[in-house]
Protein backbone atom coordinates (compact mmCIF):
# COMPACT_ATOMS: atom_id res chain seq x y z
CA UNK A 1 0.00 0.00 0.00
CA UNK A 2 1.27 3.47 -0.81
CA UNK A 3 2.31 5.51 2.22
CA UNK A 4 2.23 9.23 2.96
CA UNK A 5 5.69 10.67 3.44
CA UNK A 6 6.66 12.07 6.84
CA UNK A 7 7.58 15.76 6.93
CA UNK A 8 11.35 15.89 6.60
CA UNK A 9 13.45 17.13 9.52
CA UNK A 10 10.87 16.74 12.31
CA UNK A 11 12.17 14.62 15.15
CA UNK A 12 9.66 13.56 17.77
CA UNK A 13 9.93 10.72 20.24
CA UNK A 14 7.78 7.74 19.27
CA UNK A 15 4.45 7.74 21.11
CA UNK A 16 4.38 4.95 23.68
CA UNK A 17 1.47 5.69 26.03
CA UNK A 18 -1.75 3.64 25.92
CA UNK A 19 -4.67 6.10 25.99
CA UNK A 20 -6.73 3.77 28.19
CA UNK A 21 -4.18 4.36 30.96
CA UNK A 22 -2.90 7.81 30.05
CA UNK A 23 -6.22 9.68 29.90
CA UNK A 24 -7.40 8.59 33.41
CA UNK A 25 -3.87 9.21 34.74
CA UNK A 26 -4.07 12.83 33.54
CA UNK A 27 -7.74 13.50 34.31
CA UNK A 28 -8.14 11.88 37.68
CA UNK A 29 -11.54 13.26 38.65
CA UNK A 30 -13.53 13.92 35.45
CA UNK A 31 -16.67 14.41 37.54
CA UNK A 32 -15.19 17.66 38.91
CA UNK A 33 -15.19 19.31 35.46
CA UNK A 34 -17.69 20.53 32.94
CA UNK A 35 -16.50 18.59 29.91
CA UNK A 36 -16.92 18.95 26.16
CA UNK A 37 -15.39 15.92 24.43
CA UNK A 38 -14.79 15.67 20.69
CA UNK A 39 -16.31 13.04 18.46
CA UNK A 40 -14.67 9.59 18.39
CA UNK A 41 -12.08 8.57 20.97
CA UNK A 42 -12.27 11.39 23.50
CA UNK A 43 -16.08 11.36 23.72
CA UNK A 44 -16.01 7.60 24.20
CA UNK A 45 -13.44 7.71 26.97
CA UNK A 46 -14.85 10.68 28.90
CA UNK A 47 -18.33 9.17 28.76
CA UNK A 48 -16.88 5.83 29.89
CA UNK A 49 -14.91 7.46 32.72
CA UNK A 50 -18.06 9.16 34.05
CA UNK A 51 -20.57 6.37 33.23
CA UNK A 52 -22.16 8.73 30.70
CA UNK A 53 -22.30 11.47 33.33
CA UNK A 54 -24.42 14.60 32.91
CA UNK A 55 -21.33 16.84 33.21
CA UNK A 56 -19.98 15.53 29.89
CA UNK A 57 -21.21 16.69 26.49
CA UNK A 58 -19.74 14.03 24.21
CA UNK A 59 -19.98 14.83 20.52
CA UNK A 60 -20.87 12.18 17.97
CA UNK A 61 -20.51 14.36 14.90
CA UNK A 62 -20.07 18.05 14.03
CA UNK A 63 -16.35 17.37 13.71
CA UNK A 64 -14.39 20.44 14.80
CA UNK A 65 -16.98 21.70 17.29
CA UNK A 66 -15.33 20.58 20.53
CA UNK A 67 -12.82 23.33 21.37
CA UNK A 68 -15.18 26.16 20.36
CA UNK A 69 -18.03 24.69 22.40
CA UNK A 70 -15.73 24.46 25.39
CA UNK A 71 -14.90 28.17 24.95
CA UNK A 72 -18.58 29.19 24.92
CA UNK A 73 -19.20 27.09 28.01
CA UNK A 74 -16.16 28.47 29.86
CA UNK A 75 -17.24 32.07 29.18
CA UNK A 76 -20.78 31.23 30.33
CA UNK A 77 -19.60 29.55 33.55
CA UNK A 78 -16.57 31.51 34.80
CA UNK A 79 -16.76 29.93 38.25
CA UNK A 80 -16.61 26.35 36.99
CA UNK A 81 -13.61 24.49 35.62
CA UNK A 82 -14.15 23.57 31.97
CA UNK A 83 -12.27 20.87 30.10
CA UNK A 84 -12.28 20.73 26.31
CA UNK A 85 -10.83 17.38 25.25
CA UNK A 86 -10.43 16.45 21.62
CA UNK A 87 -8.55 14.30 19.12
CA UNK A 88 -5.85 15.50 16.77
CA UNK A 89 -8.15 15.00 13.79
CA UNK A 90 -10.93 17.11 15.25
CA UNK A 91 -8.53 19.84 16.39
CA UNK A 92 -6.93 20.04 12.95
CA UNK A 93 -10.36 20.50 11.33
CA UNK A 94 -10.89 23.84 13.08
CA UNK A 95 -7.36 24.72 14.11
CA UNK A 96 -8.14 28.46 14.03
CA UNK A 97 -10.30 27.94 17.12
CA UNK A 98 -7.04 27.82 19.09
CA UNK A 99 -6.45 31.46 18.14
CA UNK A 100 -9.98 32.42 19.10
CA UNK A 101 -9.47 30.69 22.45
CA UNK A 102 -6.04 32.27 23.01
CA UNK A 103 -7.57 35.73 22.46
CA UNK A 104 -10.49 35.14 24.82
CA UNK A 105 -8.18 33.34 27.30
CA UNK A 106 -10.71 32.28 29.94
CA UNK A 107 -8.79 31.32 33.09
CA UNK A 108 -11.16 28.42 33.79
CA UNK A 109 -10.55 26.60 30.48
CA UNK A 110 -8.13 23.76 29.84
CA UNK A 111 -7.71 22.06 26.47
CA UNK A 112 -6.37 18.53 26.17
CA UNK A 113 -5.63 16.99 22.80
CA UNK A 114 -5.30 13.22 22.83
CA UNK A 115 -2.97 12.90 19.87
CA UNK A 116 -2.73 9.37 18.50
CA UNK A 117 -1.34 10.57 15.17
CA UNK A 118 -4.29 8.95 13.41
CA UNK A 119 -7.94 9.14 12.52
CA UNK A 120 -8.70 6.25 14.84
CA UNK A 121 -12.43 6.14 14.26
CA UNK A 122 -12.33 5.79 10.50
CA UNK A 123 -9.74 3.05 10.09
CA UNK A 124 -6.58 4.51 11.58
CA UNK A 125 -5.44 6.55 8.63
CA UNK A 126 -2.39 8.75 9.35
CA UNK A 127 -3.30 12.26 10.46
CA UNK A 128 -0.94 15.16 9.90
CA UNK A 129 0.36 14.89 13.46
CA UNK A 130 1.45 11.30 12.84
CA UNK A 131 3.54 12.62 9.97
CA UNK A 132 5.28 15.43 11.82
CA UNK A 133 2.82 18.30 12.36
CA UNK A 134 3.30 19.54 15.94
CA UNK A 135 0.16 20.76 17.65
CA UNK A 136 2.01 21.94 20.75
CA UNK A 137 4.08 24.37 18.66
CA UNK A 138 0.95 25.47 16.84
CA UNK A 139 -0.84 26.14 20.17
CA UNK A 140 2.14 28.16 21.39
CA UNK A 141 2.21 30.04 18.09
CA UNK A 142 -1.44 31.00 18.56
CA UNK A 143 -0.39 32.56 21.86
CA UNK A 144 -1.57 30.04 24.43
CA UNK A 145 0.84 30.81 27.26
CA UNK A 146 0.88 27.43 29.01
CA UNK A 147 1.55 24.49 26.69
CA UNK A 148 2.72 21.12 27.95
CA UNK A 149 3.49 17.93 26.03
CA UNK A 150 3.16 14.50 27.59
CA UNK A 151 5.23 11.79 25.94
CA UNK A 152 5.72 9.46 28.91
CA UNK A 153 4.26 8.81 32.36
CA UNK A 154 7.09 10.97 33.72
CA UNK A 155 5.46 14.03 32.09
CA UNK A 156 2.10 13.31 33.72
CA UNK A 157 2.62 15.02 37.09
CA UNK A 158 3.28 18.38 35.42
CA UNK A 159 0.13 17.89 33.33
CA UNK A 160 -1.92 17.28 36.47
CA UNK A 161 -0.38 20.32 38.13
CA UNK A 162 -1.33 22.50 35.14
CA UNK A 163 -4.88 21.15 35.16
CA UNK A 164 -5.21 22.06 38.84
CA UNK A 165 -3.80 25.60 38.46
CA UNK A 166 -5.83 28.58 37.20
CA UNK A 167 -5.24 29.90 33.68
CA UNK A 168 -5.80 28.81 30.10
CA UNK A 169 -3.58 25.88 29.12
CA UNK A 170 -3.13 23.41 26.28
CA UNK A 171 -1.90 19.90 26.98
CA UNK A 172 -0.82 17.62 24.15
CA UNK A 173 -1.13 14.02 25.30
CA UNK A 174 0.73 11.87 22.80
CA UNK A 175 -0.49 8.29 22.72
CA UNK A 176 0.10 5.32 20.44
CA UNK A 177 -2.55 3.89 18.14
CA UNK A 178 -5.17 1.73 19.76
CA UNK A 179 -8.71 1.77 21.08
CA UNK A 180 -10.15 4.22 23.59
CA UNK A 181 -12.01 3.10 26.69
CA UNK A 182 -15.62 2.55 25.68
CA UNK A 183 -18.96 1.93 27.39
CA UNK A 184 -22.50 2.43 26.08
CA UNK A 185 -23.44 6.15 25.93
CA UNK A 186 -26.37 8.17 24.71
CA UNK A 187 -25.94 9.23 21.11
CA UNK A 188 -29.09 11.33 21.17
CA UNK A 189 -27.63 14.82 21.39
CA UNK A 190 -30.80 16.60 22.52
CA UNK A 191 -31.01 14.22 25.48
CA UNK A 192 -27.38 14.93 26.32
CA UNK A 193 -27.95 18.69 26.06
CA UNK A 194 -31.02 18.61 28.27
CA UNK A 195 -29.46 16.50 30.99
CA UNK A 196 -26.27 18.61 30.98
CA UNK A 197 -28.31 21.80 31.47
CA UNK A 198 -30.60 20.19 34.04
CA UNK A 199 -27.62 19.05 36.14
CA UNK A 200 -25.80 22.39 35.85
CA UNK A 201 -28.62 24.92 35.77
CA UNK A 202 -31.63 23.04 37.10
CA UNK A 203 -33.60 23.85 33.94
Amino acid at each position, binding site marked *: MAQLKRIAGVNQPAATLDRREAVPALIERPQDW*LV*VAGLAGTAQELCAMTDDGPNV*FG*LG*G*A*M*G*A*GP*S*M*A*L*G*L*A*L*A*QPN*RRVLGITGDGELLM*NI*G*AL*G*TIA*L*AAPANLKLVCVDNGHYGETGNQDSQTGLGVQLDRIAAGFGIAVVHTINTMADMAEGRRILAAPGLAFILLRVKEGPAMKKPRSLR*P*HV*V*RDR*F*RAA*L*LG*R
Partner: protein
Amino acid sequence: MYDYLRAEGVTQIAYVPDAGHKVMIDRSLADADAHSIPLTTEEEGVALLAGADLGGAKGVLLMQSSGVGNCINMLSLTAGSRFPLLCIVSMRGDFGEGNPWQFPMGRATQAVLEAMGVVVLRCDAPEDVMPTIRAACSMVWGSGEAVAVLLGQRLLGAKKF
Protein backbone atom coordinates in the same frame (compact mmCIF):
# COMPACT_ATOMS: atom_id res chain seq x y z
CA MET B 1 -30.45 46.35 17.95
CA TYR B 2 -27.35 46.05 20.15
CA ASP B 3 -29.10 47.46 23.20
CA TYR B 4 -32.13 45.26 22.61
CA LEU B 5 -30.04 42.08 22.37
CA ARG B 6 -28.08 42.98 25.51
CA ALA B 7 -31.35 43.61 27.35
CA GLU B 8 -32.52 40.17 26.17
CA GLY B 9 -29.50 38.76 28.02
CA VAL B 10 -27.05 38.28 25.15
CA THR B 11 -23.48 38.21 26.50
CA GLN B 12 -21.51 36.51 23.71
CA ILE B 13 -21.23 38.37 20.40
CA ALA B 14 -19.32 36.27 17.86
CA TYR B 15 -18.44 37.30 14.33
CA VAL B 16 -16.30 37.25 11.25
CA PRO B 17 -16.39 40.91 10.22
CA ASP B 18 -18.59 42.30 7.49
CA ALA B 19 -19.24 45.96 6.77
CA GLY B 20 -22.94 45.50 7.55
CA HIS B 21 -22.05 44.49 11.12
CA LYS B 22 -19.55 47.27 11.83
CA VAL B 23 -21.69 49.10 14.38
CA MET B 24 -22.65 45.92 16.24
CA ILE B 25 -19.02 44.77 16.35
CA ASP B 26 -17.80 48.16 17.57
CA ARG B 27 -20.50 48.26 20.24
CA SER B 28 -19.49 44.80 21.45
CA LEU B 29 -15.82 45.80 21.61
CA ALA B 30 -16.72 48.84 23.70
CA ASP B 31 -18.89 46.80 26.08
CA ALA B 32 -16.92 45.65 29.11
CA ASP B 33 -19.75 43.42 30.31
CA ALA B 34 -20.05 41.33 27.13
CA HIS B 35 -17.69 38.97 25.32
CA SER B 36 -16.77 40.17 21.84
CA ILE B 37 -15.43 37.09 20.07
CA PRO B 38 -13.75 37.42 16.66
CA LEU B 39 -13.74 34.02 14.92
CA THR B 40 -11.52 32.59 12.21
CA THR B 41 -14.47 30.88 10.52
CA GLU B 42 -18.20 31.25 11.10
CA GLU B 43 -18.68 27.59 12.01
CA GLU B 44 -16.69 28.19 15.19
CA GLY B 45 -19.47 30.57 16.19
CA VAL B 46 -22.17 27.92 15.80
CA ALA B 47 -20.24 25.67 18.19
CA LEU B 48 -19.34 28.53 20.55
CA LEU B 49 -22.98 29.48 21.02
CA ALA B 50 -23.95 25.86 21.60
CA GLY B 51 -21.39 25.83 24.43
CA ALA B 52 -22.81 29.10 25.74
CA ASP B 53 -26.27 27.52 25.88
CA LEU B 54 -24.92 24.50 27.77
CA GLY B 55 -23.72 26.99 30.37
CA GLY B 56 -26.98 28.95 30.42
CA ALA B 57 -25.73 31.98 28.45
CA LYS B 58 -27.11 33.61 25.30
CA GLY B 59 -25.22 34.78 22.24
CA VAL B 60 -25.55 36.02 18.70
CA LEU B 61 -23.56 35.11 15.59
CA LEU B 62 -22.96 37.93 13.09
CA MET B 63 -21.84 36.92 9.62
CA GLN B 64 -21.88 37.73 5.94
CA SER B 65 -24.01 35.49 3.71
CA SER B 66 -20.86 33.78 2.39
CA GLY B 67 -20.17 32.64 5.97
CA VAL B 68 -23.41 30.66 5.98
CA GLY B 69 -21.69 28.24 3.63
CA ASN B 70 -18.94 27.74 6.18
CA CYS B 71 -21.49 26.64 8.79
CA ILE B 72 -23.36 23.86 7.02
CA ASN B 73 -22.16 20.71 8.79
CA MET B 74 -21.78 22.52 12.12
CA LEU B 75 -25.51 23.24 12.01
CA SER B 76 -26.03 19.52 12.56
CA LEU B 77 -24.92 20.22 16.14
CA THR B 78 -27.66 22.84 16.46
CA ALA B 79 -30.35 20.70 14.85
CA GLY B 80 -29.52 17.41 16.54
CA SER B 81 -29.12 18.86 20.02
CA ARG B 82 -31.93 21.41 19.60
CA PHE B 83 -29.70 24.27 20.62
CA PRO B 84 -31.27 27.71 20.31
CA LEU B 85 -29.30 29.82 17.82
CA LEU B 86 -29.59 33.43 16.68
CA CYS B 87 -27.69 34.51 13.57
CA ILE B 88 -27.77 37.89 11.91
CA VAL B 89 -26.65 37.63 8.31
CA SER B 90 -25.67 40.59 6.15
CA MET B 91 -26.52 39.70 2.57
CA ARG B 92 -24.20 39.89 -0.40
CA GLY B 93 -24.90 38.65 -3.91
CA ASP B 94 -28.27 40.30 -3.52
CA PHE B 95 -30.01 43.54 -4.59
CA GLY B 96 -27.59 45.67 -6.63
CA GLU B 97 -24.49 43.51 -6.01
CA GLY B 98 -21.51 44.57 -8.13
CA ASN B 99 -19.11 41.74 -7.24
CA PRO B 100 -19.83 38.58 -9.23
CA TRP B 101 -17.95 36.43 -6.67
CA GLN B 102 -20.76 37.00 -4.20
CA PHE B 103 -23.63 35.58 -6.28
CA PRO B 104 -23.30 31.80 -5.88
CA MET B 105 -23.44 31.87 -2.08
CA GLY B 106 -25.80 34.85 -1.94
CA ARG B 107 -28.33 32.91 -4.03
CA ALA B 108 -27.90 29.78 -1.90
CA THR B 109 -27.97 31.41 1.55
CA GLN B 110 -31.65 30.98 2.40
CA ALA B 111 -31.87 27.49 0.88
CA VAL B 112 -28.81 26.28 2.77
CA LEU B 113 -30.07 27.60 6.10
CA GLU B 114 -33.51 26.09 5.58
CA ALA B 115 -32.01 22.78 4.47
CA MET B 116 -30.19 22.62 7.84
CA GLY B 117 -33.34 23.39 9.83
CA VAL B 118 -32.78 27.09 10.46
CA VAL B 119 -35.82 29.40 10.27
CA VAL B 120 -35.12 32.34 7.95
CA LEU B 121 -36.58 35.83 8.50
CA ARG B 122 -35.68 38.48 5.97
CA CYS B 123 -35.57 42.28 6.30
CA ASP B 124 -35.42 44.68 3.36
CA ALA B 125 -36.73 47.90 4.93
CA PRO B 126 -35.47 49.80 8.00
CA GLU B 127 -38.86 49.61 9.71
CA ASP B 128 -38.77 45.78 9.46
CA VAL B 129 -35.56 45.39 11.40
CA MET B 130 -36.52 45.74 15.05
CA PRO B 131 -39.84 43.86 14.80
CA THR B 132 -37.96 41.05 13.08
CA ILE B 133 -35.22 40.98 15.72
CA ARG B 134 -37.85 40.93 18.48
CA ALA B 135 -39.69 38.09 16.74
CA ALA B 136 -36.44 36.18 16.27
CA CYS B 137 -35.50 36.52 19.95
CA SER B 138 -38.79 35.09 21.08
CA MET B 139 -38.52 32.20 18.60
CA VAL B 140 -34.94 31.46 19.71
CA TRP B 141 -35.14 31.84 23.49
CA GLY B 142 -38.83 31.32 23.96
CA SER B 143 -39.21 28.34 21.66
CA GLY B 144 -35.65 27.05 21.34
CA GLU B 145 -35.49 27.43 17.55
CA ALA B 146 -32.52 28.27 15.34
CA VAL B 147 -33.25 31.52 13.49
CA ALA B 148 -31.28 33.55 10.95
CA VAL B 149 -32.28 37.16 10.28
CA LEU B 150 -31.14 38.13 6.79
CA LEU B 151 -30.43 41.83 6.29
CA GLY B 152 -30.88 42.37 2.55
CA GLN B 153 -28.81 44.68 0.37
CA ARG B 154 -31.88 46.79 -0.34
CA LEU B 155 -31.64 47.65 3.35
CA LEU B 156 -27.85 47.75 3.82
CA GLY B 157 -27.02 49.23 0.43
CA ALA B 158 -24.75 47.55 -2.11
CA LYS B 159 -21.00 48.05 -1.80
CA LYS B 160 -19.53 50.06 -4.70
CA PHE B 161 -17.09 48.34 -7.10
